[in-house]
């Protein structure tokens, strides 16, 4: 596959899209872990939801 004289523009576009999508995925994954950790800490400190369920319970 030859990309011709403008290969650098094409490769940069695809690389940039890959990097931005990976940053989005990593940001969402890290944020999820952070929220779960905070809920675990609250759970450990004895705080329960108004429904009586534990903080970490996904129901």
């Amino acid at each position, binding site marked *: 596959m030859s990309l011709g004289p403008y*290969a650098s523009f094409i490769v940069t576009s695809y690389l*940039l899209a890959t990097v*931005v*999508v990976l940053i989005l995925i990593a940001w969402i994954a890290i944020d999820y872990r952070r*929220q779960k950790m905070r*809920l675990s800490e609250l759970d450990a400190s004895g*705080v329960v939801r108004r429904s009586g369920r534990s903080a970490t319970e996904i129901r």
Partner: protein
Amino acid sequence: MTLIDLANPTRFLTLTARILPWLAAATAFLLLIGLYQSAVAPDDYQQGATVKIMFIHVPNAWLSMFVWGVMSLAALGTLVWRHPLADVAAKAAAPIGAAFTFLALVTGSLWGRPMWGTYWEWDARLTSVLILFLMYLGLIAVWRAVEDPSRAARAAAILTLVGAINLPIIKFSVDWWNTLHQPASVMRMGGPALDRAFLIPLLVMAVAFSLLFVTLHLAAMRNEILRRRVRALQMMQASQRPA
């Protein structure tokens, strides 16, 4: 489970836990197919291999507007029905929409340099998309700056609906004004003007990026619901502390 059941944050969390792995797998599968088809697509007779930039530029450009459309519907949910999940949906979508808009601008610029001879031109299409990007950043700033979530939700919802005026301007800018940007070649009266060799990879990439948005949006909504649960529990904990 009916659609109204999903409006319950707890049920929403249960559902996302179940479907997110499947959505992620489907997204990865379609992205791989789309990238392969983009790689083997023929060169355009005028643009040469730079036509391959279209396969990522156009889906991102479509999604930049689609995400604002989703946020506008969510804004109606916030203002009319005052449903907490509506603001969760809008707030979770904004950074993803900003990322898609950023990619549309930068890949468009990288495509424009070899084809138009310039990275940037202050014409109607490019400028209106830049305004869309700035509006995304502004909305994210509103959610971060206003401490009371319900006040932030209302302010963001109003701004989102006002900003929706920009969507038809972006769409029809290439028809209303003289612009370097080409007119619509897929979603237009009379059907797509693209050859199948370009249209099929483009549509596969568009579906793949749309699935990527759905996956990331559901995951970000789940995070936002958990963040609000953390906030509520921290406030409960603070109120239970002896004075």
